[in-house]
């Protein structure tokens, strides 16, 4: 017979009473329920779907390649399946459950109307290769969303197919490389600030560029003079996040763009933080050549525990001819065209007065349609006025947090003016060897998801707090109270924080052991 609960509890373990609670037989604690692995509770012969039994005598045309051995899958009936995943879900923190101020990740509320619209059969049950006459509505969604993105950013055009933010970065950098190569101008360097997301240097390196750092000023901004001094015929592009990863707007962005353009380079803006300025500032007015937009951040499509994302890239006139296939375009007769490899040259000649020199294709089919319908639903809901309010409330909430805590926590850029959508703190005043990690784990016990920690790299023990616009003042006030109390404990060197969390489904997990001897799949035990 199986042990009462294989997921962690063992009969000899007396571990559940570190807070004076009693040990239970099952390892469960009321609503906190342990759950075994699927492979420990399922069986190869169990199934939760009703299908005709396999007829072993049926003739097949599988080329003699029948799969004979066991596959190694197990099944559960529907009630067991629903319970398994419901129990697992309860070990997760989500926005629906509480405040999730993960800086740079923009954990805003995911409106349920978006989900409902994405599930309309006219969007959900349509094949990407159906004849164009049968998918006019889908193409209109793509085109309408493209129109919103272009207007909101003040840019020339948009490549819709990238699958996520990092994929969009790649798209933008590849457009830049293609544009440079088209004019016979091989350049080798992409400049990236030290505070950038890790995807920026990884993307530039992938596109075969050498990555060099852009220095920052003490106020947390790009050092304009140092940047100007570095620009030259070898610099293909600068990649700058704006607002930047310290949560600050780059006031010299226009000057940066002008200088980069004067030196023959392009300006890539990492649009991960576009939610701070949507409806308020158009990146096109700042001289941006390419910017990806994370639909799952600014436009509220769900993060889903790590994706799927969607990363359309808006482009300047100089880069538009190089965008990847496929794309959609509406002609004067109102028809929406889907432009794939075959039509690209003819269409460009006829409608854009020239050949299109697309750099190629980034993905099968046309992009993240399921995310497009959600994002468009969100845009239509908010409208131009609502989106402006979105940016204003996000920035207001972050500044409120910054000014409510700067007296107790080290806030490295508090003196350089207002922040944008996120407030940045550091751990330099913590006592007794306590660090940001300890405070973050204490935050878990207080019922909040921790902020982003140790990013950006330019601040010691960085804590990046992004409240978003979808929190109420009372929710933010409660968070401030908890954060203040944790900060005071950390500064006072409260040792108990080193062992937090105490009340989560798991205590601190041994990540070193996980990496030393990786166990990445379930294998049947010997017994």
């Amino acid at each position, binding site marked *: 017979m199986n042990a009462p609960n294989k997921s962690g509890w063992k009969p000899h373990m007396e571990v559940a009473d570190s807070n004076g609670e009693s040990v239970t037989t099952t390892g469960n604690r009321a609503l906190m329920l342990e759950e075994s692995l699927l492979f420990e509770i399922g069986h190869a012969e169990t199934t939760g779907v009703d299908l005709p039994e396999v007829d072993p005598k049926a003739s097949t045309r599988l080329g003699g390649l029948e799969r004979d051995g066991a596959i190694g899958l197990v099944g559960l009936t529907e009630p067991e399946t629903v319970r398994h995943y419901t129990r697992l879900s309860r070990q997760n923190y989500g926005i629906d459950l509480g405040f*999730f101020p993960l800086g740079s990740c923009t954990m805003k509320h995911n409106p349920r109307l978006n989900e409902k619209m994405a599930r*309309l059969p006219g969007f959900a049950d*349509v094949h990407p290769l159906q*004849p164009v006459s049968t998918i006019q509505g889908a193409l209109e969604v793509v085109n309408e969303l493209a129109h919103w993105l272009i207007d909101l950013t003040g840019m020339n055009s948009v490549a819709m197919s990238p699958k996520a933010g990092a994929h969009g970065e790649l798209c933008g950098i590849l457009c830049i490389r293609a544009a440079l190569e088209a004019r016979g101008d091989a350049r080798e360097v992409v400049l990236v600030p030290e505070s950038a997301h*890790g995807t920026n240097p990884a993307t530039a390196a992938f596109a075969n560029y050498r990555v060099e750092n852009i220095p920052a000023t003490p106020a947390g901004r790009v050092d304009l003079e140092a940047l100007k001094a570095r620009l030259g015929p070898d610099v293909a592009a600068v990649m700058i996040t704006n607002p930047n990863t310290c949560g600050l707007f780059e006031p010299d962005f226009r000057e940066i763009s002008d200088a980069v353009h004067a030196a023959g380079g392009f300006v890539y803006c990492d649009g991960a933080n576009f939610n701070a300025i949507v409806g308020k500032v158009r990146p096109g007015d700042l001289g941006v050549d390419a910017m990806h937009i994370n639909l799952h951040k600014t436009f509220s499509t769900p993060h889903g525990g790590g994706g799927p994302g969607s990363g359309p890239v808006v482009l300047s006139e100089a880069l538009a001819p190089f965008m990847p296939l496929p794309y959609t375009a509406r002609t004067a007769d109102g028809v929406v065209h889907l432009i794939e490899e075959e039509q690209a040259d003819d269409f460009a000649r006829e409608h854009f007065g020239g050949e299109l020199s697309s750099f190629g294709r980034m993905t099968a089919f046309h992009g993240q349609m399921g995310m497009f319908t959600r994002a468009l639903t969100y845009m239509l809901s908010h409208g131009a006025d609502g989106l402006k309010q979105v940016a204003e409330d996000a920035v207001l909430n972050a500044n409120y947090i910054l000014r409510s805590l700067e007296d107790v926590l080290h806030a490295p850029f508090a003196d350089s003016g207002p922040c944008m959508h996120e407030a940045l703190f550091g751990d330099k005043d913590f006592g007794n060897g306590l660090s940001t990690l300890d405070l973050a784990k204490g935050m*878990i016990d207080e019922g909040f998801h921790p902020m982003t920690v140790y990013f950006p790299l330019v601040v010691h023990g960085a804590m990046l707090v992004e409240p978003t616009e979808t929190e109420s003042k009372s929710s933010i006030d409660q968070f401030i109270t908890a954060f203040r109390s944790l900060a005071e404990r950390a500064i006072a060197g409260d040792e108990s924080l080193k062992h937090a969390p105490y009340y989560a489904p798991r205590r601190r997990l041994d990540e070193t052991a996980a990496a030393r001897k990786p166990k990445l799949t379930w294998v049947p035990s010997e017994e």
Partner: protein
Amino acid sequence: MRYLPLTDTDRGDMLAKIGADNIDDLFVDVPEVARLDGPIRGLPMHASEMAVERHMKRLAGKNTVAGDVPFFLGAGAYRHHVPASVDTVIQRGEFLTAYTPYQPEIAQGTLQMLFEFQTQVANLYGCAVANASLYDGSTACWEAVAMATRVTKKNRAVLSGALHPHYSEVVKTMAQFTGDVIADAQPAIQAEPDMAGLTARIDEETACVVVQYPDILGRISDLSELADAAHEKGALLVAVNTEPVALGAIKSPGEMGADIVVGEGQSIGVGLQFGGPYLGLFAVRNPKHVRQMPGRLCGETVDAEGKRGFVLTLSTREQHIRREKATSNICTNSGLCALAFSVHMTLLGEKGLRELAAENHRLACLVADRLAQVPGVSLLNNAFFNEFTIMLDGKPARDVVRDLADRGVLGGVSLGRLYPGDERLQQALLVAVTETTTEDDIETLATQLEAIIKEDAQ
């Protein structure tokens, strides 16, 4: 506005706390040239749920819904029945509104699910280890090529002519920038894939050979000899699968010696969704290759009290740690689609997957035989799973597809759409069949096809 909780009183109080007179004081860093004097012009103002719903429904209504008509499209995206409980599970807010599990103590739900998903994928593919998913099959295919160049320290990839053309386009596009050399080919229209020809293209400089299984024409062939030939030259075999249901009936690529197995997971749990979001599957046969894999990996460990738990691991491969030296620039995976896949696969189990595969194949055989009776139509494949190629005598398949659509039948994917400009392929039509195909659908397709061919002959 229904998604914004702050009241005007709140806003006033908060501005006072901050010491700002008005909201624009917080946007002082925005340069003059970029300041706007109100909402962006040319876009509509906010709208009620009802109004938005009306608008979106109007757009949705302009599409032909696959489930409403006889439907036979595949070519990398398949229409399967998804059990009702899959959507119920993925709509739970704890899954839907969670982030990448950076704080494992409060993300065990996502992490355990990913560990189970990795196990399901690895076993389905006949591999040792699978990652926590990539964007989709085509990008997973490129990542496999890139990984093969890292493992072998060679940079020439040989692509089978029968690899999905979108996949080879993605690989070729990416390779332009990395300096890798890609040798591809057009598919040969014949009953059996040209494995000898593909084998002959492998040389000492080859990092990997990429082959689709079942291939773009629906053909199936043993990969064992190809694997041996690749290994002999120090190359890896990358197998690409776009229809995971097939692996409930035919041998896994891993058991035939493929080193990296990648594919599209959309068939299980995800739905058609006009092409995305889908689910990239990625697995390796040799556990030694794990540290060269792209994307997120979830691993088992223990917590401070010795309880089993799960974490993201081996992250020193990834961009947020390694920056420009990362194995890939990937940050996001396809988490919620991985959940949908895992739930559906749990409902199926080994028994259900085998039954589903058998039912797909049984119906595909019926359709193939019925269509072969239509004058002017011949079946190309000797072997197939649930998708095959028919040749239309003297008639461009694209026109037939369009005519069928006019008659309310979505009859397949013309190869001409996938390979524009290649004359030899214009008469080929790819037909996919799943458990959702009914006998009426089959009869309607056959009858309409016959009528169109006849009409054309007159």
